[in-house]
Structures are given as structure tokens and as C-alpha cells.
């Protein structure tokens, strides 16, 4: 085979001016700040909701056990969501960049499979706990009204939950799964390249 073409010298001709090192460090800090801010925003909103639920419990003095169980379930759902987004997901998404390419690819495939499972499971658990909690919480207060009122409140709530579960949630889970699956397929394809000849 011809070795006349000096690929190395052609390769070395490509150069780019290096940005100032302070620019790189500033970008690193900016990225850190952005990802921290995103997590904190989610934490603050959910924490405030938990506080509001706790205050309802404190001020309205619910008498029925169903109300207390309902509030507990809703608070638990949010706590689980906060723990997952703050602790579990970043931990799972952390790939060791210092390892070799082969191990890195296998690690990425494992991470993506876990992410898919966690996304699906946590979303389902969160939504079910929230729905059941809301349903139980309403029993005490709705039972004080007449049957038309009861029918209306339950009807509206159930419709709202059904739209969320069957349309919004199902669509977002499907979209997320599709995106993760595409990545997994591509990563597996690249991983197969490692074992095959060219």
C-alpha cells in the first residue's frame, strides 16, 4: 500500500487559537452555577409545597385518618422526587471520564439503562402517590358538601388526573424513553466497533 501521502504532516497543519485560560475557568464556573441553580429551583418549589401541606395539616386539624394518610403520601412523593433528582440521578449520570474508551462505553450503556428504569419507576411512583394522596385528602372536606358538590369535585379531579396520566405523563415518558433508547442503540453500535476489525 502506498505510503507516499504524509498524513501526519497534513494532520498537524490544523490549528486553532487557544482561548485565554481564564475564559475556560470562567466557563467551568458558569456551567457549575447553571446546573446548581436548576437543581435548587426544583428543590425550592417542592420544599415550599411540602411546607404548605404541613401548614394545612397544622392549621386545619384534619379529623379523619384518610386526610392524614393523604397528606403524608403527597409529602412522601415530593421527598422521593427531591432525593431522586438531587442524589440518585446525578450519581447515576456520573461517568468516569478518566477510564479507557472501552470501559467508558460500557459504563455509559449501563448508566443509560439505569436512567431509563429510574425515570419510568420514579415518575410512576411519584404520580401514583400524589393521586392516591390527593384522593384520600379530599374525602374529609368533600363529604361536608352535598352530592352535586361531591360529584363535581371528584369529577374535575379525576379528569385532571386522567389527562395528566394518560396524556401529559405518557407522552413525556414515551419521549424520554425514545431519546434514551436512541442513545443506547448508538452506544452499543460504537461498542461493537471496538470488537470488530475495520
Amino acid at each position, binding site marked *: *500500500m*502506498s*505510503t507516499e*501521502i504524509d*498524513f*501526519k504532516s*497534513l*494532520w*498537524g*497543519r*490544523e*490549528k*486553532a487559537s*487557544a*482561548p485565554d*485560560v481564564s475564559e*475556560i*475557568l470562567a*466557563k*467551568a464556573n458558569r*456551567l457549575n452555577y447553571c446546573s446548581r441553580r436548576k437543581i435548587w429551583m426544583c428543590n425550592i418549589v417542592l420544599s415550599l409545597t411540602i411546607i404548605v401541606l404541613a401548614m394545612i395539616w397544622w392549621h386545619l386539624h384534619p379529623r379523619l385518618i384518610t386526610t392524614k394518610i393523604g397528606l403524608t403520601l403527597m409529602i412522601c412523593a415530593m421527598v422521593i422526587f427531591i432525593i431522586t433528582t438531587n442524589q440518585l440521578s446525578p450519581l447515576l449520570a456520573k*461517568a468516569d*471520564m*478518566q*477510564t*479507557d*474508551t*472501552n*470501559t*467508558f*462505553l460500557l459504563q*455509559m450503556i449501563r448508566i443509560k439503562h439505569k436512567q431509563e428504569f429510574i425515570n419510568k419507576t420514579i415518575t410512576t411512583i411519584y404520580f401514583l402517590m400524589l393521586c392516591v394522596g390527593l384522593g384520600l385528602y379530599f374525602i374529609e372536606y368533600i363529604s361536608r358538601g352535598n352530592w352535586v358538590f361531591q360529584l363535581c369535585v371528584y369529577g374535575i379531579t379525576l379528569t385532571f388526573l386522567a389527562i395528566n396520566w394518560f396524556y401529559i405523563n405518557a407522552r413525556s415518558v414515551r419521549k424520554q424513553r425514545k*431519546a434514551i433508547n*436512541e*442513545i443506547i442503540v*448508538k*452506544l452499543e453500535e*460504537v461498542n461493537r*466497533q*471496538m470488537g470488530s*476489525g*475495520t
Partner: protein
Amino acid sequence: MVFEEIYKHYWNKVYRICMGYVNDADLAKDMAQETFINIWKQLPNFRNESAVGTWIYRIAANNCLRQIERLSRMPKSDFPEHVEDVVGPDKEGQTKFLYKCIAELPETDRIIISLELEDVKQAEIAKITGLSESNVRVKIFRIKEKLTQKFKDYEH
């Protein structure tokens, strides 16, 4: 080793590896910057278990592969397009053509040939990629064969 020294010494090397992977100068610069952000973050954990070059190239190669994850989030219209201009047979044209050919190879081959052209020893490439030395040798031979053939077709 001080970060500034690493940055000065390895910027163009890392940039070229990224460029070989995507054949898009702006995207390659962004990827090189991301690689150095990772290097900066990981530097306190560097234990001298491998040569600093091997360590840097591992991070660069893995960062290139992370593009798989990022590109899937991009709308199709935002995908970087490879240079399709007709380029002349002068050195500049040949350089562009080389990067275009490399970016069209399968992902792992892009990384392997980029490291080879960056004068990284085959034993080091094996450590960076996790392949055996003999496998690396065979792959490099076959990739060079492919590139030579493409250059022959391009010149005629």
C-alpha cells in the same frame, strides 16, 4: 502539573482530535474547551498512575464519545454538516479532505487514527482505548489503507 502548562501544551492536540471526530471547527473548539474543563476538574484526582498524556487523551476521547448523547438532544437541523466544498489538491485542500475522511469513519476508528496521527505510541493508544496492542495495530493499518485509497480517488 499545573493546569496552565497542560492547557498550553495540549490545546492544539486536543482540538485536532475533536476536529477529526466532528470535522466542524466551531464545534471542535467547544468540545476542546469542555475537555479542558473536565481536565481542570479532575486534575486534583490525577495520581500519576499513567502518563499525563495518556490521561488527557482518555478524557478527550471519552468527551468525543459523549457527543453521541448530546447530538441526540439536538434537532436534526442543528447537526454539524461536514465540509462538502470541492477542495483543491494543494496542502490546505488535502488537509480539509483528510479531516473530512476521518470524520466519516466509524466513531472508534476516528479516535484511534487521530491519536496515531498525533504521534501517540500504539501501546499508549491501546491504554487509552482499552484495546489490545495487536488490535490497535491492525485497525491503524486498515484505516490508513482506507484513507490512502480515498486520497487516490480524490486526486484522480
